[in-house]
């Protein structure tokens, strides 16, 4: 187990380095965008004087690297600064939205992950039957349709025709859990449909891959029933690739949901990021991107740790 702890710390250290590099990239990418916050906020009606006045008030007349290191100095001590546009603390602006995003992502994950792994196991078990084909066609259809299209189709059938669920998911703080789940149902379902195919197909492929191995042949020959062959013998060896795909999809549920947020008017972090980029609001862009980067790093780490735990051989690299 000592090896594992060392690995976790090593990876966390590397992750910090990655985040630092990401922050530099983001900062200069925002700098490279044409126009700056003063022009973006004042719009077409901006005059030379008002733009200059605003730049001075926001300190944008100082060189870029000075501003970057000021921000970095704050960030290291946990102070991500204030939004240049609204003057609100970045942590305040982001926290509620990030909680909403996490809520939607976990809601979708709790449903999507078990369903897709089960479907994967069953399609491997009954491969090349009608069940397998239907499951494959359905999931491939949903993953191939753009998210906003899926969202609109669900709205049409479940909100407009059948009025079972609200078409827009406006949340407020005083809603009970049940109402929250009801309000967020359609965006959750859209996300589930989008991520299921990937995880299901990977589970199916990983298991089928193993079914040709000699030890599975052995299990069959000694008379183990097919479901037991898969669950007890094939699945344990297939976990590593499955966990990796699950981690990737979980990251996607957090970072890639802007379209779903727009279609269902869900107040998540994606919309915040898009607006912040449009206004060149660097501290907010930076904070959102770092959250996304950290999500990827942590989930990748979790996937690796998971893979090692399920496969003792990986604990002793040669």
């Amino acid at each position, binding site marked *: 187990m000592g090896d594992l702890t060392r690995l976790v710390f090593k990876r966390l250290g590397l992750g910090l380095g990655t985040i630092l590099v990401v922050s530099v990239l983001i900062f200069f990418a925002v700098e490279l965008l044409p126009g700056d916050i003063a022009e973006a906020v004042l719009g077409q009606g901006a005059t030379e004087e008002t733009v200059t006045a605003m730049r001075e008030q926001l300190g944008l007349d100082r060189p870029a690297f000075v501003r970057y290191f000021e921000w970095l100095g704050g960030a290291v001590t946990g102070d991500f600064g204030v939004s240049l546009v609204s003057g609100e603390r970045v942590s305040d602006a982001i926290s509620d939205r990030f909680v909403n995003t996490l809520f939607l992502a976990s809601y979708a994950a709790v449903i999507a992950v078990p369903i897709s792994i089960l479907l994967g196991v069953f399609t491997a078990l009954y491969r090349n039957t009608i069940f397998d084909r239907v499951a494959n066609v359905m999931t491939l259809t949903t993953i191939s349709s753009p998210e906003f299209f899926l969202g609109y189709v669900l709205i049409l059938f479940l909100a*407009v025709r059948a009025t079972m669920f609200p*078409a827009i998911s406006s949340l407020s703080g005083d809603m009970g859990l049940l109402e929250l789940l009801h309000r967020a149902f359609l965006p959750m379902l859209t996300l589930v449909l989008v991520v299921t195919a990937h995880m299901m197909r990977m589970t199916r492929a990983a298991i089928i891959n193993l079914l040709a191995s000699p030890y599975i042949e052995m299990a069959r020959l000694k008379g183990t029933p097919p479901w037991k062959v898969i669950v007890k013998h094939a699945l344990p060896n297939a976990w590593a690739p499955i966990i990796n795909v699950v981690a990737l999809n979980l990251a996607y549920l957090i970072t890639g949901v802007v379209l779903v947020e727009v279609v269902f008017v869900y*107040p998540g972090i994606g919309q915040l990021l898009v607006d912040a980029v449009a206004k060149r609001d660097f501290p907010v862009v930076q904070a959102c991107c770092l959250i996304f980067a950290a999500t990827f790093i942590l989930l990748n780490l979790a996937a690796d740790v998971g893979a090692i735990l399920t496969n003792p051989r990986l604990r002793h690299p040669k």
Partner: protein
Amino acid sequence: MSKKDQVLINRIADAARTGRISRRDFINTSIAAGLTATTATGLWTTKAAAQPKSGGTFRWGLHDGNTSDTHDPGSYVTRQMIYLAHTHRSYLTMINGDGSLGPDLADSWEASADASEWTFKINENASFHSGKKCTADDVIASLNHHRGDDTTSAAKALLSDVVEITKDGDYTVKITLTGGNADLPWLMTDYHFAICPANDDGTIEWKSGDGTGPYKIDGGEFGVNWQLSRHDGWHREGAYFDKVEILVLNDPNARQTALVTGDVDAVSLIELKTMALLQRDPNITIHNIPSAGAITMPMHCNKAPFDNPDVRNAMKLAMNRDEIIEKIAFGAATKGNDFHHSPAQPYWPEDIPQREYDPDQAKSLLKKAGAEGLTVSLSTADSVYAGAVDMAVLYAEQAKAAGINVNVVREPNDGYYSDVWLVKPFTLVSWGARPTPDVMYTLAYKADAAWNESYWVNDRFNELLLMGKAELDDAKRGEIYREMAMLARDDGGTIIPFFNNFVYANRSNVGTPDALAASWECDGARAASRWWFTG
């Protein structure tokens, strides 16, 4: 009246009550059914027009709102900020439903004889949501927020001719100008000039969201939603709803679905493409209101070939506006007549003949100018207006009949207003609504204006502009703006294809006044205080 007529009238009155037909339709149909106009009008008042009723939560879906918006009146730009401002804050004056100017925070106002000094009397009952009385100090600080060297307000230019703003007692504000400006009370309706509480040092406290408007903010978040409840001390009539909930619905489809499923009671914009389909829904009332926003096509009058008025007029005659309105604006537009003064603005001259599509006359004008077989380039971009490029291509086709070759040049969206507009000789531009013709002409048609987009210099026009600005007599002003319109139409360098309409909708259980203000969508952005639930 026969029994059959009576049944018919009752049916029409029913239709009017549920919002399926408008007041005008009601009266026309009733007259057709054999009533006199007076009886029909009386019937409308007693039978059809519902009296406003109090109560309910008005859920209002708005397009155009960002999470990066703020309460700072100097940076108001999106609909979310503007509509919220008209709901929780007040202005000195307001534009009424019929297009006239009415009182808001100011009870009355008057000018010195040359219109260079204005006095506004503040309503003494007006109070902020915090309970504090609204006084002259608050008004002065709120206006000064847009003045001075270090202001970052986008409305700075509108107050550039203000010399000083002083108070005369707690409820009187005096504004002194460098010259006469009869439009100052109209300017005070500009969405930036919301009144906020003053700090002791003469700045304003805008961050808290306090205001003197009909509703106070209970909670909310920019780019998501706002909850407001009635401010009991509001100084004007209206505010029938108990609560107002503003939802930012940027996605056109989400907006439409929310309206259809009843998740919201009104939306600020519907897509023109699907307007006809939405019209079939009996639970929805669509409003199609001519606005003062316009699409313009300025030609640089200081450059060949546009330096010849005959060429400019040929270009204007070569446009089939009806076809453009039908195909590009889906009918939701008001035909332009090449002067930038919309029927939605005051002093609009009614009797100016409409310029029609006349390729033959265009040809003969070109012949006269010695410019037959003219070839010009028209620069445009899709960001200007949804369908701007299509519109340019359609115009190019129409102009062919007049022997004019129009090359449509598609420019990049980014930087269109800095690299193309005012630079390329013939462009396509979109203008937001301005409250009066004077503001519009001063901004974009005055000889020395920074945004004189057609570089048009006409001495008489500029002389009239200054006369009109300081003229307090409405009849004389009307005459002046009529003459200016004729000059712009027949000598100016700007083709105006159309003024775009505001198209918005509400569920039919929402009652709306007969006349809806045309300054913004949703009754001049004041739906929350002017509309009501019929039941």
